[in-house]
């Protein structure tokens, strides 16, 4: 079975009606790591950015106000929890919903910054994330249409893979790439980081890294490569 060849031995399942959560070492590792990072972020304080002034010995400190700090910490924790949920879920559509939630929260974290160019790139990222909602949800819907289920556990046990399922998986890949801001869409997301308030900004990056690892596993399960 392909589940065990990717994520390690199956430690157990949590049957919740139609949705069956399954636990294996990969999921548990990712889940625990992201929870630890979320706790670290929840108890940390923001950094103060120090910019050297050009042509003098002065320095310019850019810090984050208390209100903005609380706002960002809340959204960063939500982002961490959504990532943790995406790590452990056994349902394809729940994964896409967690993914979309991460996208929204990522926009929210930078929504209160004062730099106009950061807001501009957040706006561009938001547009890309919204457009990529079509391949993300549409891909999941096509997989549902061609296999009749959204449970990864059942998908992994399916005897054959229809061409339509592979098409759906490819659409999901496009959607994941856009929502998490990897290769073709990375430019705007990298610009979003250029603002003070480091640990909270970092979860934007961290969540997309984790999501990519999990989505690779999910897509490999769906198209039965391994």
């Amino acid at each position, binding site marked *: 079975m392909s589940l065990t060849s990717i994520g390690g031995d199956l430690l157990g399942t949590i049957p919740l009606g139609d949705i069956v959560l399954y636990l294996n070492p990969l999921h548990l590792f990712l889940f625990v790591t992201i929870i630890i990072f979320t706790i670290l972020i929840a108890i940390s304080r923001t950094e103060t950015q120090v910019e050297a002034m050009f042509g003098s010995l002065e320095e310019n400190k850019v810090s984050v106000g208390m209100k903005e700090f609380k706002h960002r910490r809340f959204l960063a924790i939500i982002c961490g929890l959504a990532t943790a949920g995406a790590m452990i879920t056994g349902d394809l559509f729940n994964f896409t919903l967690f993914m979309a939630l991460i996208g929204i929260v990522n926009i929210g974290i930078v929504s209160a910054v004062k730099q*106009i160019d950061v*807001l501009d790139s957040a*706006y561009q990222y938001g547009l890309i*994330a*919204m457009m990529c*909602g*079509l391949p993300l*949800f549409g891909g999941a819907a096509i997989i*549902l249409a061609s296999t*009749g289920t959204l449970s990864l556990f059942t998908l992994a046990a399916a005897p054959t893979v229809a061409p339509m399922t592979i098409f759906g998986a490819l659409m999901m890949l496009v959607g994941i790439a856009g929502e998490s801001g990897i290769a073709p869409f990375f430019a705007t997301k990298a610009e979003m980081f250029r603002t003070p308030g480091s640990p909270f900004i970092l979860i934007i990056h961290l969540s997309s890294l984790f999501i990519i690892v999990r989505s690779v596993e999910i897509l490999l399960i769906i198209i039965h490569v391994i």
Partner: protein
Amino acid sequence: MVVELVPQYVPAFFQSMYTPALYGGLIVAFIALIGIAIQKKDIHILILTDLVGLAMLIVVAAVGTDLAEALVLPGLVVELAEIMAISEILISREMRKIGPKQSFIPSEFSLDMEIMHTAPNFLALILIAYGAFLTGFTGGAVAGGGIIIYVLSRKARGLPIAVVDGVGGISGIAWCLWIIGFVLFFAVPQYWLLSLFLAALGLFLKVASKMGLMGILMREEFGKK
């Protein structure tokens, strides 16, 4: 759609509708993407991006099972949340560009219509009362239209407009009412009338306050030459 998954009693006509619906959704998305490529103004791009989101709903709804129906609602909510977040970004960017003090409807506004001077308050009142009578989503939309007419008429007559900052809070509390009503449906079904009215009132307040917020969107185009 895999044929053996579909139950026998589903007519062949409904089964054959999946492919046209899927293509239809993809074509709508493609047209919207062409529109996004052509448009220059940010607000227009945002509106057209919502069209791509609607195409996503078409693709999901094309599956046509009850599971797909259960997926349409979260898809719609995610879509709305994203467009709210992005428009919030757009507003805060434009506000930062033009400075903090702005009126509710900042642009030059001339609506020299008789209806704006004679009885706009009465009209707004009737709309709000009728909306309260309707309750639910439709009633919220009607009452929100009443609020917008009231605001527009004040603006057209050159009177100041009081911006209520707590409108978003009302919307949130109304949402809680809706959820409480929904939970009561399952917890104590014998009080179905109470929960129905809670849900209807919550939805009414929520939609009405959301429609009242709409004028804020006008602020961001101001000052853009």
